[in-house]
């Protein structure tokens, strides 16, 4: 408990100068894309949107970390990187499958979101199974007195000396919403990069469109995974590792993460698009 309580509460504050620098940096990166490879500007903007969706979505996911594994804090008992990899990549697979079936862009992105949300729903349910039937602990939040959705009181179920435990209903819903956002964001990044590569790589490499498919899919997928992990880890830094869900006070830090994810996605997306421009 002392180690949990000793976690510095600092980091909740905004740094307006750095936020302004971040936004300027974002505009500069978009400007570079416009001058170097004009056709890449719209895809890059959508990649930034995808990155922001990932960064914002991860805030909803109940990340418990090591304290949750010991039943001393609510949430899923692992780190953001693992949860994002699980939920987000499941979404990416779903979206990529829809893209390969030749679906409309909107359908592809929604399929990706549903894939991520489904993965998180299964994860949250199995986590609660393990908590309730395996560890013998009820679900209780330590951050709020009443569950914001069901209105159930929490204090009676919370063990002394813990921050709460298990996965309360609001955290479950948060996890599913987070999976939806993150899966849709990751799929959007993949889809935009895939379109750029499919359009430009045949001319760059001097081969046919059919031959370029495996390279375009693989490169777009790899970049999407890379950007996904970068955004997820930056968000993990923002929430300093653990969060209970949308009702957690740490959730209010999301504006910082949105700016950070936008800059990081613009940077990585620009480099990824430059492959066909150089």
């Amino acid at each position: 408990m002392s180690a949990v309580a000793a976690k510095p509460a600092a980091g909740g504050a905004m740094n307006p100068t750095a936020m302004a620098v971040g936004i300027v940096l974002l505009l500069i990166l978009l400007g570079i894309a416009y001058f170097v490879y004009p056709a890449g500007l719209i895809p890059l903007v959508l990649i930034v949107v995808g990155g922001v969706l990932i960064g914002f979505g991860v805030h909803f996911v109940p990340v418990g970390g090591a304290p949750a594994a010991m039943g001393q804090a609510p949430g899923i008992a692992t780190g953001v990187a693992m949860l994002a990899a699980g939920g987000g990549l499941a979404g990416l697979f779903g979206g990529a499958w829809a893209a390969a079936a030749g679906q409309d862009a909107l359908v592809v992105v929604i399929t990706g979101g549903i894939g991520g949300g489904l993965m998180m729903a299964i994860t949250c349910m199995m986590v609660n199974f393990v908590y309730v039937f395996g560890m013998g602990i009820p679900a209780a939040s330590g951050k709020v007195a009443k569950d914001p959705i069901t209105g159930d009181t929490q204090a009676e179920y919370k063990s002394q000396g813990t921050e709460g435990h298990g996965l309360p209903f609001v955290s479950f819903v948060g996890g599913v919403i987070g999976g939806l956002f993150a899966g849709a964001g990751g799929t959007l990044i993949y889809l935009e990069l895939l379109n750029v590569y499919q359009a430009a790589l045949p001319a760059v490499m001097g081969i046919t469109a059919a031959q370029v498919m495996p390279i375009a899919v693989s490169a777009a997928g790899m970049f999407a995974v890379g950007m996904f992990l970068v955004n997820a880890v930056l968000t993990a830094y923002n929430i300093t590792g653990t969060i209970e869900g949308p009702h957690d006070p740490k959730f209010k830090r999301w504006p910082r993460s949105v700016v950070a994810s936008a800059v990081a996605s613009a940077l990585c997306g620009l480099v990824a698009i430059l492959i066909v421009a150089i």
Partner: protein
Amino acid sequence: MTVKVEVIEGGIPHNKIMIAGIVSTLVCLYLTYLNVLTGTEMFSFFGGLAVIAALIWGSHTIKVLCSYGIGTGVPSAGMIAFGSGVIAMLLATKFGFYAPIVAAVLAAIIGFILGYVSNNILNMKIPAMVQALTEMAVVGALTLMGFAALITGGFTFAGLTTGHVTVMGMTLLTHEQSFLGGCLIAVAFLLGAIAIQHPFNACLGPGWQQDRMLMLTAECGFLSMLVAAIMSFALISTGSALISLIIAIIGWAYTYNEYMVLSKRDAAAWLDAKPIPEMEGH
């Protein structure tokens, strides 16, 4: 978030490891260029050695970064290293002979901006953050380039995207059977990401010893090289892949043995310290 949990006591200073790491990685990567000069694929194994040099440097950087309580777990550091590294590495392969140097510079730029973003926009305020994320991106990019050189025998974009299949005696050009087209890069990505984050994750704590952690990194590196060497049978000649495989097995056996010796050395010291006091009635 400026609580420093541990300090580095004794051992080789980080800057020395960093300089040795980047020099030996780049030298090993350029030694794989002997493949082009001599027209063989025999020197691919230098890519694996580049991977190990980069991983040793990277795992020590993770130690420097994660000594501050960043609260996100050690694996996340490995994930951001490779997430930013893979992007720099793939663009750099377009520069042919200069690819390793371009990868290092480009990854450093990406890592520096990500470090600024985490330290200032996300208000992490960790002194080592910017330098650590810069180094990690370079490590990620160079490790992946090392894996690429080990598996395909080269590090150019054309080499990573084209392969050959032999059908009834005829050699055909294909893009599906290649490092990028076959998505072997995804396996290389995770082989590296796990090898870079595991050593500090396994060795952290009051009994942390630099030589033991770095030996574990070398062991993880050779284990990853072993898997990559097996994958290289698909893309380079059997003899060359066999050289990589034998070097990986010998290196792994040696480092595993050394790591066990070091573990026993440190474990014996723990037994004498009696960390858990004896209670009455037990």
